[in-house]
């Protein structure tokens, strides 16, 4: 099997796993136990991890809040903001956001909040002026992702931050796909809230974080019960998961320049191979402002889901992993027809990917597309 779906999830790095193992058994303490060494050791490990995650994103250590994952972090950022800003009644987001942002915002809309959904250009990028036009003095929050999970484009966050702050709105970004893959610095981007996930950067599933710029913003907790994480997220901390997240963040930070370049070359190798062997293909999203490992391609005259199945031993995805069968809302937002949106694959190159795997995958895709077009074409 060739795994080219690193935007869905990544395997836990062996170094990460090794760092986690002691915290399941011998160092099993509750990080909130203040009275004995078991608790102190667990707490020290959590705080070390908090620092490692903070360093990856250029944040103050105290501003990192651990959660069960990025979906929870997004919910905490969005719902926590509106519960703290009752003097405002408006939220702005972008049409190509992940469902983990769109769905909580849809919930706000049901509760009476006004919502503006900003479109994207055909290359998938947000026009900062469109955000500026949408934001008013009534806007509590602007939420725009750093890197798109389906097409990998990197949004112009700094300009969007300026547009939000000009009217006193806070900026939240779902930075799950960007962190650890491309330089992401909360100060350079001037974001107020940012969501992260361990399992996208070779850490374990079930752990994430929300960055909260506490000097500027104060959010309302969504889970009460003990006041953990400075009152923003109660619940006993997932110590092994958090330790693994910290180690994964540290590895991502030190390895990023070399790894990003290697992954980018492999992605380009795949792109070139497909361009030269398969006719009727379209690359979705801007090719420059993009994650190094991401390639999203539409194949004319083929069904994306059938492609996935026929690919057999090459694991890629069609759109977001959670919403197959419906055309991707991201590709539809680029102005594609439903037919083309359904005929798209997302390739995600990652840390373990080799050139031989890229060559195998490219040849397999070319062969399968040819055979499927034979089935699908209406003429002989």
């Amino acid at each position: 099997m060739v795994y080219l779906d690193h935007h869905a999830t990544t395997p836990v790095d062996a170094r990460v796993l090794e760092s986690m193992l002691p915290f399941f058994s011998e160092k099993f303490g509750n990080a909130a136990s203040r009275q004995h060494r078991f608790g102190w050791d667990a707490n020290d490990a959590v705080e070390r991890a908090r620092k490692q995650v903070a360093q990856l994103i250029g944040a103050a250590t105290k501003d990192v809040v651990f959660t069960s994952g990025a979906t929870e972090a997004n919910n905490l950022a969005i719902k926590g903001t509106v519960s703290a800003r009752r003097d405002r009644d408006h939220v702005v987001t972008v049409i190509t956001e992940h469902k983990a942002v769109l769905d909580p915002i849809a919930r706000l809309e049901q509760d009476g909040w006004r919502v503006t959904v900003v479109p994207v250009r055909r290359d998938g990028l947000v026009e900062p002026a469109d955000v500026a036009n949408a934001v008013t003095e009534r806007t509590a929050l602007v939420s725009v992702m750093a890197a798109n999970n389906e097409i990998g484009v990197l949004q112009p966050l700094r300009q969007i931050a300026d547009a939000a702050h000009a009217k006193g709105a806070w900026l939240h970004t779902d930075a799950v796909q960007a962190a650890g893959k491309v330089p992401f610095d909360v100060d350079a981007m001037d974001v107020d809230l940012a969501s992260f996930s361990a399992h996208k950067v070779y850490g374990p599933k079930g752990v994430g974080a929300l960055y909260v710029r506490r000097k500027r913003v104060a959010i309302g907790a969504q889970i009460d019960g003990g006041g953990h994480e400075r009152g923003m997220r109660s619940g006993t901390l997932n110590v092994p998961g958090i330790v693994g997240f910290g180690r994964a963040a540290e590895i991502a930070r030190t390895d990023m320049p070399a790894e990003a370049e290697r992954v980018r070359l492999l992605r380009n190798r795949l792109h070139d191979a497909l361009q030269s062997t398969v006719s009727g293909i379209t690359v979705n999203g801007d090719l420059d402002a993009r994650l190094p490992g991401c390639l999203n391609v539409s194949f004319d005259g083929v069904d994306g889901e059938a492609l996935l199945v026929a690919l057999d031993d090459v694991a890629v995805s069609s759109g977001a992993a959670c919403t197959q069968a419906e055309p991707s809302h991201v590709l539809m937002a680029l102005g594609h027809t439903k037919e083309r949106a359904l005929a798209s694959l997302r390739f995600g190159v990652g840390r373990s990917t080799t050139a031989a795997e890229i060559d195998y995958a490219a040849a397999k895709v070319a062969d399968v597309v040819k055979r499927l077009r034979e089935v699908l074409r209406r003429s002989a």
Partner: protein
Amino acid sequence: MKYSDEVLRRVQHLERVGVLEGANVGTGEVGTLDEGTVVRIQVRAEGDRVAAARFKVFGCSAAIASASLVAEWLDGAAIDEAGSLTSERVVQHLDLVPERAHVARMAVEAGLKALADSRGLTAESREQK
């Protein structure tokens, strides 16, 4: 979506894909591109039997597997008996999840339409004789 081995096998090893031309070829087509699935099945009738069956599909793996199964069942079948084809049999054979049952119905409908079309053609060609 997880598919049965039978669906995977049919999608990965395509058989009876194609177009039939000439006399006594009946065609049944169901669905539109707008709906995301189009199934076309063709049969060539010779006497009271289906001498050949071929399919074309635009759609998901379940649609491809369903059309391939219907074409396989029709190929060589007696025309009178082939009409007993049901989507329940397709769903069962391919172990399709309920959300995909509609593509089985489309494939069966396309197959039955192709048979009816070929029967009409056969009757016409008999009349012409």
